[in-house]
């Protein structure tokens, strides 16, 4: 059970790290790479708190082994803001709407919302609700999430048309 070398890209940076074969992607991100944005809620893929992107798709990082992302691109909440720390329009909107209550689910919700808007820039309310259906908020703060995501979609669309 020797450690294995994991090579992948995390938030745009090439990463090479030694990991145990039985370590999940979530644990490798948190423990080995210090990226504590993704959270472990249930550990069984039900709550969405550990949501990250792998090759642009949302996944439950608690259900992947770290070695499964070898050669792939991983993006966590730490990689959502621009490198100069300018917040992503989704993050701006979440701040403006006061979405976070306890905050535990928010990194996962933001990553689910970011993937949704990349695939569907102008989602309906129904599509937004479906897009974050895999993310549980035990503070039940869904209404403000939907409003913030809808507003961010508008911001992104107007930025896109301004270019």
């Amino acid at each position: 059970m020797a450690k294995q070398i994991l090579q992948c890209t995390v938030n745009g940076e090439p990463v090479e790290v030694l990991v145990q074969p039985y370590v999940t992607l979530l644990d490798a991100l948190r423990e080995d790479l210090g990226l504590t944005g993704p959270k472990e809620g249930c550990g069984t893929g039900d709550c969405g708190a550990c949501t990250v992107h792998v090759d642009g798709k949302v996944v439950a990082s608690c259900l992947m082994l770290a070695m499964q992302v070898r050669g792939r691109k991983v993006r966590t909440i730490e990689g959502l803001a621009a490198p100069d720390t300018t917040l992503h329009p989704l993050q701006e909107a979440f701040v403006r709407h006061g979405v976070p209550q306890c905050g535990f689910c928010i990194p996962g919700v933001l990553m689910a919302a970011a993937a949704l808007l990349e695939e569907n820039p102008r989602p309906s309310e129904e599509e937004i609700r479906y897009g974050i259906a895999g993310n549980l908020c035990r503070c039940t703060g869904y209404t403000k999430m939907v409003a913030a995501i809808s507003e961010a979609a508008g911001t992104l669309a107007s930025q896109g048309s301004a270019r």
Partner: protein
Amino acid sequence: MRRFDLALPNSVEDCLKILAERGAQAKLLAGGTDLLPQMKDGVLKPALVVDLSGVARVRQVHNGDGLRIGAAVTARELEVNPAVRGAYRAIAESAALVGSLQVRNLATVGGNLCNAAPSADMAPPLVALEAQAVIAGPGGERRVPMADFFTGVRQTVLAPNELLVELVVPPPGAGSGGQYLRHTPRRELDIAVVGVAAQLTMADGRCTKARLALASVAPTPVRAIAAERSLEGQPVTPEAIERAATLAIEAARPISDQRGSVEFRKHLVRVLTRRTLTTALARASA
């Protein structure tokens, strides 16, 4: 999780070599959405995990004369694949019902089948579309009809030194339509109380082939053969659909559990058979 060795094969051949040596103590890892929770719970304690993410052959969908679906193709890929959403729509519908998006981007069709839960959503459409499982082993490849793949709760025909490589689905042909529906207490992220897949092929106003497969009403997915036979050779009238829906109950041997009683499950078989046959007929005629 308990510690284990992790093998990272790059081909079906490499994978079979590993299984030949350590198959009895190994688990194959496709999407991991069933395997990892069971390992975290200590229900499964493999000494070796064999990751299939590097095996290209099991990750591809080919649409030609029929559909070939790699065993490690994700539920999400099947949900959005245009060819699957076309002639094989019941498969896409079943894939869209698996877990959340975060789970569907990982969960695979082969994992859903090999895990062999009686409630597996992707099994009934594959049974109804008469798919065959292509299984690789030390003696080469063999094909098993989907209807014979399951042998019990969480049990399949796969030997420890074998690998499910792909599913071959014959083209349903012109005049064929199908649907998969399930009942769950809530709309998303739930497990089927009952699932029904129907596939009807029509010619000159009569049914030339009917296939009905049920989930969550027996230890394995089952075909409702008496109901199928009642439809074949006949015009599919509302009365014929009602008769088939009643006959489908005969194929169900459900248990009572926290998700539903025997009586409720039989009622659902009737309702969902009626609904899926009605939709299948409309799609066959479209």
